[in-house]
């Protein structure tokens, strides 16, 4: 069950962009946009900032999700308060997630960097709930919206003996359980873990970033790999492990314009939930049972794979970055760049649940010198 949605909150977006301040170098940009948690690599987001420099990225992401043609969107319901997994209980319709992220990168030394990523999510979701239940078994349309801080990520990065042409950065981050996990839908029902803004548990996230100047200061290639493991939370729910691989090229056409292209692959293992097992009543159960309450299959509470979770997603992401410093000579544009990317799905396997559609990422990057080395 992967769903996400958001209301547009322009005030929050503008507030975030106003936080982004001034300075320094104009990094090249790489971007990738996954499903619910989209990350955009803006050069400085993956690299290690120079010693004493704080680089701030303000990133806006728009991610719609719908069912893929040929799938039904019928997925289990996860009732965490009662520890029940109810098969075929929901029919997903749509989710839209908008994320505004503040990413802060600080160079502790020339090699070590500290990164803090603070997402603010705005989510709207539509589905049909209570399939199989009275009055007619067709369920009821339910909407959900929530906005707030998601799970904050804190990480350390190490620049492994870089050269003018190449760079390898290894990183290790921890996701903190700071996101909201008690949002309810339009009927007042607690929403499922996959719809909440946070995961209610810590997560580990090693990363590896590599870049090489194929044609110095003209064309470079980059690659990025990430793994995320989330521990089981207090509700007995554990999100599946996630792998991400991105690779692409940046082309400096004129000094103020960088064209970027990349491929992104994301693989998510299914979730698990400690629960008993039910299924929704179906017409074939006969009039005595349909419509009716969910039918018990196994009363034992044990760790169960959540069907329709887990997915794979491959996208092609073109984009561009504008160096404002090269366009406008002003203290306000010094070492500032803006960027835009569009992530276009080319292969999706959503396990009958919602799948990510074409997504968009826009952002601004700027740096501050906080201390002299």
């Amino acid at each position, binding site marked *: 069950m992967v769903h996400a949605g958001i209301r547009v909150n322009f005030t929050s977006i503008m507030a975030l962009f106003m936080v982004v301040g001034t300075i320094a170098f104009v990094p090249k940009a790489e971007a990738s946009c996954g499903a619910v948690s989209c990350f955009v690599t803006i050069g400085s987001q993956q690299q290690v900032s120079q010693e004493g420099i704080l680089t701030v990225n303000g990133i806006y992401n728009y991610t719609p999700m719908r069912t893929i043609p040929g799938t039904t969107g019928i997925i289990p319901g996860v009732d965490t308060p009662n520890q029940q997994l109810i098969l075929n209980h929901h029919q997903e319709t749509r989710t839209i997630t908008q994320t505004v992220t503040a990413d802060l990168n600080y160079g502790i030394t020339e090699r070590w960097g500290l990164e803090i990523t603070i997402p603010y999510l705005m989510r709207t979701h539509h589905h049909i709930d209570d399939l199989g239940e009275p009055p007619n078994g067709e369920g009821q349309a339910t909407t959900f919206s929530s906005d707030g801080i998601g799970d904050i990520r804190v990480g350390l990065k190490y620049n492994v003996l870089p050269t003018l*042409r190449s*760079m390898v950065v290894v990183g290790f981050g921890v996701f903190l359980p700071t996101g909201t996990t008690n949002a309810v839908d339009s009927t007042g029902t607690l929403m499922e873990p996959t719809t909440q803004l946070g995961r209610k548990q810590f997560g580990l996230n090693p990363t590896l970033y590599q870049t090489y100047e194929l044609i110095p*200061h003209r064309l470079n*290639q980059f690659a990025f790999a990430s793994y995320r493991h989330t521990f089981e939370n207090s509700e007995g729910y554990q999100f599946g492990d996630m792998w991400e691989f991105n*690779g692409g090229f940046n082309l400096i056409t004129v000094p103020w314009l960088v064209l970027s292209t990349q491929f992104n692959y994301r693989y998510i293992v299914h979730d698990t939930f400690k629960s008993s097992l039910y299924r929704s009543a179906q017409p074939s159960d006969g009039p005595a049972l349909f419509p009716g309450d969910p039918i018990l299959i196994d009363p034992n509470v044990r760790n169960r794979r959540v069907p329709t979770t887990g997915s794979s997603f491959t996208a092609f992401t073109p984009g561009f970055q504008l160096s404002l410093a090269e366009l406008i000579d002003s203290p306000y544009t010094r070492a500032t760049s803006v960027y835009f990317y569009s992530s276009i799905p080319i292969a999706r396997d959503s396990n009958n649940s919602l799948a990510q559609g074409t997504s968009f990422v826009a952002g601004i990057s700027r740096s501050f010198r906080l201390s*002299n*080395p």
Partner: protein
Amino acid sequence: MRSRRIISGPVVIVLLLVMVAWPAFDGWSMGSRVPAIGMEVEDFQLTDLEGKPQSLSQHRGKIVLLNFWATWCKPCTTEMPAMQASFDKLREKGFVVLAINELEDDAKVREHIKTYGHTFTVLMDRDNQVANQFGVYGLPVSVFIDQQGRVQEYIKGGLLTEQMINDVVARIQKQEPVKAASLR
């Protein structure tokens, strides 16, 4: 069917990445650590804009400013007039400037030097080896080497001024201890 789709996607991407990134591993020489103050520098040889080979050792006995730069690097080109002014003033007193251009073609560099009228020696580090030798992964970097071939100052990123260069050269000539924060 699902496992085949899962395997084929990442396999294709990984293969593409390896093909594209292969030059990185072939030509990728890991950068070296920044040389410590007082450390004797290993000799190197590069060609100048006339195609003549020049080595660091042929300037032994003089104070050498190694400046790593590129035409696209604004701070690099901004500090070059200061380097020129100091070179004009101190060249007769045993001061040499070797401006080491990184990864650019001769024509572009020659045009830049001609446009701005620089007369100090420009060396072409086409394969990035000398930059790697000095732990350079960002531009500009300036390294002051004394008459005995030892590093006396290593300045990263900051803009050189004529006064700064003159002060460093004077200090080296007097063989005074280098002040703190030599490695910036």
